[in-house]
């Protein structure tokens, strides 16, 4: 039992990331009818926003401390980050420590801008082209974005830590009456899960309770009719693209402490997120979220030693196997609607 709870918990953070990316993919697909292969790159850019901010905050100047000497006997050079100089050592250190959460604020405008530029500059011109062309051009864009990041940040993962307050783990088992250290869960993963739930809730509330959201939902159901009503749907869809980009971006920011960002993390997550979207049902937002968590948890179960000893390597392929089975038995996915993407 404790092992099962542990696996569910372990699946939550990956599932959260899948759900957040799949949510954005579905929003873009449902509203704009575009299959965006560059969506994973947005997640990756988000993670590198966190890296960049922590690098900026660590920018330092050198002073010479005449009272100390280094091992060669020269006066010791001391590096002081500018933020420490400006805000005082304690506040400055706290700011540097909290770089990742701060990066959310830093990344939102960047991601929205990236989203706008992508939609207005490129994807807009592909609304009427074949899906194959959309896939190919966004695939090309994904390669370009990935290579640009690689050029500036290098090919190696860049460790980016969570704030000290969230280091360490929470003993979840004790709450449920198990012995200490049976079910432990890193604080930051817990934060990630709650954060993801918050963002998902926010997106749903936004779509449910605002006029803007209503129009977008109507547009997802029937794009042409809404266009006929004289509502400027294109402008709203641009904004929607910006929002989807921001969701992917902040998902990436917060993921940075869980997995050190590298330039190909976007592609890695994208393939699985597509599978998540297809399993959830193309064009279904709740389906995307449900399938995201489901597959995340499933993956985590498959990596249990007991299961791996039965079927070696099952954790590597479980998601694909499940996706194939679901598509064969329920071609529209778990919550797919009739008439979406069907010939």
């Amino acid at each position, binding site marked *: 039992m404790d092992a099962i709870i542990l696996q569910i918990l372990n699946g939550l953070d990956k599932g959260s990331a899948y759900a957040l990316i799949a949510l954005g993919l579905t929003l873009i697909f449902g509203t704009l009818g575009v299959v965006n292969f560059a969506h994973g790159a947005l997640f990756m850019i988000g993670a590198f926003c966190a890296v960049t901010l922590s690098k900026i905050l660590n920018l330092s100047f050198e002073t010479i401390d005449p009272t100390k000497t280094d091992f060669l006997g020269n006066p010791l050079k001391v590096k002081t980050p500018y933020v420490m100089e400006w805000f005082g050592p304690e506040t400055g250190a706290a700011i540097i420590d909290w770089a990742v959460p701060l990066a959310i604020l830093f990344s939102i405008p960047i991601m929205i801008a990236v989203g706008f530029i992508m939609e207005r500059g490129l994807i807009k011109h592909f609304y009427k082209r074949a899906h194959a062309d959309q896939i190919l051009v966004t695939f090309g864009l994904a390669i370009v974005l990935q290579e640009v990041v690689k050029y500036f940040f290098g090919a190696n993962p860049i460790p980016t830590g969570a704030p000290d307050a969230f280091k360490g783990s929470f003993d979840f088992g004790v709450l449920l009456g198990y012995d200490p250290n049976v079910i432990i869960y890193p604080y930051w993963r817990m934060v990630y899960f709650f954060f993801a739930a918050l963002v998902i809730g926010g997106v749903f509330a936004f779509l449910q309770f605002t006029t803007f959201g209503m129009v977008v939902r109507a547009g997802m159901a029937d794009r042409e009719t809404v266009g006929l009503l004289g509502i400027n749907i294109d402008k709203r869809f641009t904004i929607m693209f910006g929002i989807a980009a921001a969701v992917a971006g902040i998902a990436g920011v917060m993921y940075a402490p869980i997995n050190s960002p590298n330039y190909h993390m976007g592609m890695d997550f994208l393939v699985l997120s597509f*599978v998540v979207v297809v399993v959830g049902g193309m064009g279904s937002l709740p389906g995307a979220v449900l399938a995201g968590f489901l597959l995340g948890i499933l993956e985590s179960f498959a990596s249990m030693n007991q299961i791996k000893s039965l079927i070696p390597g099952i954790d590597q392929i479980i998601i694909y196997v499940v996706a194939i089975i679901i598509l064969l038995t329920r071609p529209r996915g778990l919550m797919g609607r009739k008439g979406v993407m069907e010939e």
Partner: protein
Amino acid sequence: MLGLNKKDTSLMIVVAILALFAPFILNPFPEGSAMAQFNAGYPDLMQRFVIFGIFAIGFNILFGLTGYLSFGHAAFLGIGSYSVVWMYKLLDYNVIWGLPLAIITSGLFALLIGYVSLRRSGIYFSILTLAFAQMSFNLAYSVLTPITNGETGLQVYTDDAQVLLGANEATSPHLFGIVMNSSAKLDLGPWSFTFNNGYYFCAIILLLVFYLAIRIFRSPFGMMLRAIKSNQTRLNYTGLNPRPYALAAFVISGMYAGLAGGLMAAMDPLAGAERMQWTASGEVVLMTILGGTGTLIGPVLGAGFIKYFENIFSKINDNILHQWFAFLPDGLEDFVVFIIHPFIGKGWHLTLGILFMLVVIFLPGGLVEGGQRIKRALSRKKDADAAKTEPAE
């Protein structure tokens, strides 16, 4: 000739001449000259032209004719390579055992993957093939290590069975004693040309499969595939079931990919999982589109173009750039080199991505369409000139 019409026969002849004389054609610059770095007439690169040409021809039979965009064809490439290396390990280094097996196994996998994936069309199909390929990659990389040797890659070890290995047999891939990696050299003045057994072996296979592709394009089957791309509704209401046709195309293109993968292992007796990665699938899509989707010669051109520039771009470094732009004033020279730097050497993928986007945006018909456009523009200009001169007479 050979059941081809005049136009196709001349196309076939052109391709045959290009393939057979490639060691000359691709080495136009004398050895040691400044331009020699643009030569492409060395075995390794020529083999890659031909092998990726075969891969792209096969991919085009699926994507170009039926319009089904597979994002997982690299899986078959890998399966082909593994098949061939296994035959080396079990029997001997003669490629005659491995290549047919590569075609058969990749065909069987294609049948399985195609049967499942073709139950859906459009974007679902692309994602399903992508998922299958990624799954195959994971299987090869970590799950099936006894068969694939995982991360290290599959290769022949001295303690392998090799039951047919003769006492005097070559210990590298060969075809009945014709060793793939041996070459003849011809020096003509400052020029040097290399004739490699492996290259010619691949080139002859390319000609065979290219001929087969022409026959498929001109056959009733090829017409049915184009009909699938054009209008599936009408096909259904004409009493035809599109699915077996599409599946047949999928299997054929999978077998082409398997053959290409097999040839890779026939040139270099190694097989690794990275061959199956989805970026490799993306590459063949790009080759096909860049050359011209649905055209006969396009994929071969696209494969050659990409492999050539991959080679050139990866070789160029800052020093070479500085040599090229030495005529510029110093500051400007540094600036130009600084601008170009991200696109060369390890930056080739960036160039590739940009190329990918530019082709899809501006030249969806690829190089073949580009050529036609230029031809049309020229003939229009000629017409215009003729019209202009007429009144003067």
